């Protein structure tokens, strides 16, 4: 049913499967070894970023809420899983050290050892209350969804209830992620300050498995999660719910007057999107290996919006294309692998000029191609927006978005 209505889903899933299979067959662990492990990790991380972009598209492209704080949820998911990874991994190391003593360690000694290892760096000897269930994987997995979901729910409830929208809402979400990152930066709040959580690539209980294999497993997990998130987002936007949130995007007041509980819809889509983001983050950071409060800096969330905009918002595959293309290009340019451009009088070194190109390119996309890269897909499929010759879509001048109207 869903696929008949949205054939693009099938294409997307097929492409994703082919991609995953291809990378697996070229990997060091299960194939020819053409693709090095570091690249496998980069690709796996890119899939997670693509899922975050899908979540962003859900709130911005479909519901019209420009959240400039979505990476806060992404990073929070990473922090929650990172707590377990770090705690359990340190636990293994401490247990191995204590095993050399003839008398077996007590639970308290074990915990003190772990605390010393993890929090010695910020000069603390007590395990913070927030870490009291860090030893349990199911609980932390629950928190991966629960903490960002609750934060998004509270924030959204406060913001939507008082009818904060548009630019104000964007600024507030930005303030939220800034506040959270400043809070995490403080050493005494139990998240190791600016040291962040590190060593996350070492999966507890899997120390005998080489990283090349683990990276492929994470690639599969990321691909599966992306497929799942994509299907969920498609299902959400395909039905009546999707119609209502698109209507809210185009004319919120009219939807409210039609009797729909606008705040409830916005809150639902905001919270779901935050939880998808958090799940993506929980898979991203074990592949990145380290997380620190700088990941929550407002700029990161704006980049998320930039990806969605460049890919083409209002379409889920657009978000994926944007995230994949821009983040891969970005790592290509900033990795120093792009050839420098010699203008004769000045040598353009892309490590320094990539951000300029990205920034200006983004302005150009906003101005000339509001549908982003996905307009290429449209061109291939022969889709064209209806020629309305500038006719208004409604009484609110803000709804003059005819190019997005049919999305």
């Amino acid at each position, binding site marked *: 049913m869903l696929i008949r209505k949205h054939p693009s889903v099938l294409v997307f899933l097929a492409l994703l499967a082919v991609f995953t299979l291809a990378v697996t067959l070229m990997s060091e662990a299960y194939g020819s070894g053409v693709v090095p492990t570091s690249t496998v990790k980069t690709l796996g991380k890119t899939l997670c970023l693509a899922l975050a972009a899908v979540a962003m598209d859900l709130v911005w492209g479909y519901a*019209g809420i*420009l959240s400039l704080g979505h990476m806060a949820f992404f990073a929070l998911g990473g922090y929650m899983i990172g707590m377990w990874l770090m705690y359990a991994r340190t636990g293994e190391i401490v247990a191995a050290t204590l095993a050399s*003593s*003839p*008398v*077996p*360690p*007590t*639970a*308290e*000694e074990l915990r003190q050892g772990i605390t010393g290892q993890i929090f010695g760096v910020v000069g603390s000897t007590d395990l913070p209350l927030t870490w009291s269930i860090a030893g349990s994987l199911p609980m932390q997995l629950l928190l991966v969804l629960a903490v960002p979901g609750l934060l998004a729910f509270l*924030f959204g409830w*406060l*913001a939507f*209830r*008082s*009818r*904060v929208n*548009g*630019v*104000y809402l*964007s*600024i*507030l979400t*930005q*303030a*939220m992620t*800034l*506040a959270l990152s*400043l*809070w995490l*930066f*403080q050493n005494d709040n139990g998240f190791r300050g600016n040291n962040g959580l590190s060593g996350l690539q070492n999966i507890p209980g899997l120390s005998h498995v080489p990283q090349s294999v683990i990276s492929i497993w994470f690639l599969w997990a990321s691909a599966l999660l992306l497929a799942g998130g994509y299907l969920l987002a498609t299902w959400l936007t395909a039905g009546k719910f999707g119609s209502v949130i698109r209507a809210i995007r185009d004319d919120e007041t009219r939807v409210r007057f039609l009797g729909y509980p606008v705040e409830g819809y916005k809150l639902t889509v905001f919270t779901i999107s935050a939880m998808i983001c958090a799940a993506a983050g929980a898979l991203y950071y074990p592949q990145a290996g380290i997380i620190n409060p700088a990941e929550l800096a*407002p*700029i990161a969330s*704006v980049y998320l*919006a*930039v990806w969605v*905009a460049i890919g083409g918002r209002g379409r889920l595959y657009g978000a994926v294309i944007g995230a994949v293309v821009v983040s891969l290009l970005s790592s290509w340019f900033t990795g120093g692998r792009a050839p420098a451009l010699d203008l004769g009088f000045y040598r353009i070194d892309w490590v*320094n*000029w990539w*951000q*300029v*190109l*990205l*920034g*200006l*390119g*983004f*302005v150009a996309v*906003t*101005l000339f191609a*509001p549908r982003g890269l996905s307009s290429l897909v449209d061109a291939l499929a022969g889709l064209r927006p209806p020629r309305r010759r500038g006719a208004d879509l409604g009484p609110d*001048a*803000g709804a*003059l*978005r005819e190019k997005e109207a049919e999305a």
Partner: protein
Amino acid sequence: MRHLLLSLLMLLAAPACAQDLAQVLDANRAQIEQPSRQTIAPVIEALAAAGPQAGAVLEAWADRRLGLADGRFVIVQGDEAVDAVTGAAVRGEVRVLRPNSGVRGIIGAALVQFQLSDPDPSRRAAALDAIARRSDETHLAALRAAGNDPDPALAVRKARLERLLTIRFDPDPQARVDAIEAFSGDTGADLQAVLNPLLATTRIAAPTIPGQANVAAELIPGDDIPQDEAYRLLVEAGLAPARLAPDAQKQALSAHIVEGTVGGVPVAELSDPARRDTAYDALAEVGLVPPAATAAEAEAALSGHRFADIYAEPNAQITDAARRALNAMALRQGAQQTADLALDALSLASIYFLAAIGLAITFGVMGVINMAHGEFIMMGAYTGYVVQTLIAGRTLSLIVALPAAFIVTFLAGVVLYRLVIRHLVKRPLETLLATFGLSIALQQIAKNIFGTQARPLTAPAWLEGSVGFGEIVSISTIRVAIFVLALMFLGLFLWIMNRTRLGLEVRAVTQNPGMAASMGINPDRIAMLTFGLGSGIAGIAGVAIGLFAKVTSELGSDYIVQSFMTVVVGGVGNIWGTLAGAALIGGLQKGIEVINPANTLAAQTWMILLIIIFIQFRPRGIMPTRGRAAEA
């Protein structure tokens, strides 16, 4: 009067004193030649009592200028030597005495009374300084004996010092209490230094608290002090046996493993603390390890003893008076710090105001948030830096930099408007993102041109230093200048808005663009000019910020979120909203910093949270736009 008579008497008795001095010197010749710290004190006292001339002798002795020539004491002055008693010049070989530092310290103390009545005011001041640095009870007597100083300033200092020493050394408790109370209202650091040691406490554990002790507070283990800490006090006082530390227990256990068990407990079960205790008790029973105090015994020991903080000062009246005085002092200091803080908050608010005013204008007129605003601030700061490298005179370069920054950023704003913003009209979110893309690009361009290291933008000499009121309240001149600049811009802005044609048209477009257009106003031109004006003010704010912060490519982004907050909190109705927003943000940030002074990060976190909550109650800011325009 008594002192006057005494000095008259001394004058009359000068020959007799000289006689005394000679006698004292002769009588104690051996001691003076080979002084020992333990026995020299009576000799020095005798010398000090031997009249005014003795001062010179003591001083020479302390300076290692007293010597012996032909069996007579002489004072060496440069290349010459004079007789210590008669003052007559002496020729011949002089053997200089070299007292050790301990002896010289005692001599120095005795000298004070001579220095205090020295005719040279600078030496009297030096003596007072010396007493203020290190004093003992002899100084109190010396100060009292020295009488009034002819120099009024010195007399005041001397009287204050005498009062301070009275607090510390007077044998009469009532005199000390009176002296403390006489200082009420004073917040001097010297007074604090005197009062704080009076309240020094030591923590004791004893079966009963001694009756004569001056108890600061009785401590209940578990409530006022941790149980472990209390038990440690007991152990230190020898009132209870040491408890077995977990590490020691573990070591003892691992030392007595016999065939996989310890005291009958299998090793594998020792991961349980209770089993460890069982094993240890079993070992203790057969005498392999010393018995440890059990938890119950420790509990009994804690409840059988009392714990208290005891003042070193035995007199409760004095400690009470000192505490009262210190509390009053803290109150006064708090008031002064509040004043200082208000000044800080004011200067921070004026910075935010300068940074946010341009943002507020563009938001008010076009409903557009310019995310590149921070980069315009940075651009202004770099313009100031470039002007400073071209023009040597700092004052002149600053005078040139302000308009130059305005022009550069005005033009940048106009270009941005023509190229980008007018094409995105009515799409505020797209504008937000497009200007954001521009801000990424501008920041990186600045980094590529000027490098990542901070560039100095040095203020002219007349802007350095600070303006102070009282001991605590002070504010740097640059911040005063920024405050003045903010006031000037407030005035300029009000003038433009209320008194000029441009202001009229801007207000018309803000309120109803359609109606304004039909009245012959070109909204596009007005929007362009306001955008340029807002950007230009950002440039000037950049110069101002650059004067006290380092100019880097991230300068703008450090202030941009606060500027957004200012606009959001203030509302876009009018300039007063921005002013109120800036005052609120600045005040809030400084206010929270006081609650937790070590942690400015926490202050910013809480400020942002408070703002998010504030928005709940005033979603459109303190001064919202009203009427039809509010919906646009």
